[in-house]
């Protein structure tokens, strides 16, 4: 084995080591950090446990937003015009969060079926609607 072979061997060894390490880490991390994107109807049928971290896409139902009188907690209803889910969130809502507009809520369900959100996103586009909700609504219409 001359030095070129040795070097190639080292290359291949390092490369495969890196790849193996990388893929192991990736699969581990990916498995833990997937947010499943669901619509209110899917949540109703999915039998989720309180441990599942979910991402809910839908529309904020008109006249459903209620501010708590002395804290930052808000409660509103997310809808896809077939099913509704009540959401509770404590914090500052994004600028583009409006009743009747699309939003994405991340969090987990509690035992009463409320979604306790840790993050609320409103698309930075006033005409935005989550793709699935849009398709769903077109099918219903």
């Amino acid at each position, binding site marked *: 084995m001359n030095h070129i072979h040795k070097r190639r061997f*080292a290359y291949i060894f390092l490369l495969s080591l890196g790849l193996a390490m990388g893929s192991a880490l*990736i699969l581990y991390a990916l498995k833990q950090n*997937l*947010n499943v994107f669901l619509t209110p109807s899917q949540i109703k049928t999915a039998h989720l446990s309180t441990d599942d971290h979910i991402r809910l896409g839908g529309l904020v139902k008109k006249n459903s937003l209620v501010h708590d009188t002395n804290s930052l907690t808000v409660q509103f209803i997310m809808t896809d015009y077939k099913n509704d889910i009540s959401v509770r969130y404590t914090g*500052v*809502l994004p600028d583009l969060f409006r009743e009747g507009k699309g939003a994405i809520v991340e969090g987990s369900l509690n035992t009463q079926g409320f979604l306790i959100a840790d993050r609320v996103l409103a698309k*930075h586009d*006033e005409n935005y609607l989550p793709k699935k909700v849009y398709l769903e609504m077109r099918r219903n219409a």
Partner: protein
Amino acid sequence: MIGLAGKIALWFAFAFALLQSLPPFYGSLRNNIYLRALARPAALGQCACIIIAYLLLTIAFVRNDFSIAYVAANSHPDLPLMYRICAVWGGHEGSILLWILMLNAWTLAFSCLRTSLDKSLTLAIFGLINFCFLCFLIFTSNPFLTASTALTPLDLNPLLQDPGLVIHPPMLYAGYVGFSAAFAISLAALIRGRLDAAWAHITRQFAIAAWCLLTMGITLGSWWAYRVLGWGGFWFWDPVENASLLPWLSGTALIHTLVLAEKRQVAISWAALLAIITFALSLLGTFLVRSGILISAHTFANDPARGVFLLILLAILLLIALSIYLWRLPHATSHKNRAAGMTAFNLLSRETGLLINSGLLFIAMLTVLLGTLYPLIFDALHLGAISVGAPYFNKIMLPLALITLIVMALGPLCRWQQQSAWMLWRQTAGKLLLSLLISSVLIWGVSHHLDPLAILLMTLSCWVILNVTQFLRLQPGMTFAHLGFAVLLIGIVLSSTLNQERDVRIHPGDTVNLGPYEFIFIDTQGVKGANYRGIRAAFDVVKNNHHVTNLYPEKRIYTVRDMVMTKVAIHPGIFRDLYIALGQPLNENDWSVRIYYKPFMRWIWLGGILMMLGGILALIKGENSCRGKKN
């Protein structure tokens, strides 16, 4: 009128692009010097046409020519002049025109270069890329289309009305597109079978220039996100941000590998492959941003037809490039290596360090790519809609960053070919101990809590800084770039571990305590700007009974689009940022307010600037090249 002239200019550019690509390409294969000679004048002609088209569009914006649909969709008579000029690239069509303008600028830079490389063939490849993008511009997103009916001006998206937008997109695009130069030069060299030191040198110069611009573009982008999006973060692992990080990671690997290719004739084929991949990633980034197929927090116009067009373009270019690579590689490298006397090296040597580094960067790129595209793969296989959360990226990047830091600390100290481990240990062990001491004391001092991970990252960053400063005179470029990376990591570690934030409900007169600071909400006032009206809150910031500053966060309503925007107020400092974002009015007096105390935030951008500075120095000094005076 302007619309027609613009269309004509684009069609002329289209014709020039054809002239620039096909005849010289054919001429190169047939050795016809007359056809080959066409490349340069055609490139100049195309450049002139694109500049004219771009200026025409700018004039249309300045003169409020709302007969052009694109101008009407992105401007308004009330918009300040500076933003009207920037609005040229505020939408999809204009930004593609900017892309093409940048590509032409790089073509021009290359055509002015004095080099032994095959210029006309390289220009022909430039022409081909230009041709593809002109097709895309003219057929799917022509900015000069006249409005069929009288359109009401829609104003520029308020999120984009920020000084950050003035320089961020051109920088980012210049960087993105700059890797086309590395791509074109490498492809021409592959076809000619000359992957030699001259190729590596020129490619590296262009890659460094592009890398500097991309680094600056990303830094400005994160600064913009920090100030405008109002979430207090600087990086969200959003698909659109990842799209710019991918070519950066791969481009960094390319720059490092090209040092090896030029000085040691090692890893030539790897460097050529990286040049191709980096440009492919730039194209992929454009595709991801422009097609809107990924759920992103940023605003971009979506149109599936455009996405498909770009995807086909990407596939064709990548396919051609990779087949040329596979077909020509044996011709391009084999006899050259023997002739140049490629040198062997031990496992512990600077060569190995550079190789590991490029491998790590490449793996980092792949993981970000996977995380970014995973939702698409899932969707394509009908497994449901998912998104990959930021913790994935953080978790993956952490070990990679740790190993990269170790390699960065030791690699530059190693000699070429072989290095004694004992010498390396003697040179660095003391510094490692010193940096451990510094970081422990620092972290204990500021947080009274020893977070092992933060200390580990800080120690390694300090180690890199201590080890690398000795090269300040010999290799200032490398030194600054590595310093910048270490400073960036220190900034990220400290700002994320020491960050304090509070969402509060307060009314005028209330006080909020955060860190060592007191924030006193004084009152709110109405304000009116050129194209918005809003409410301005006044805060008094006090530390230990000493007045620090007044902060005035605003809530604005941009009247034309009826869009609400938060204008955050930031008091920057080297060691900490104070950041207030106004939420919603809750009743007549109460407001929801988000307040941040962010230590070492500025270090993140300082790191980015240092890295760019390093790139510029390396470019000027001709560092790490056979032709450079030093090293």
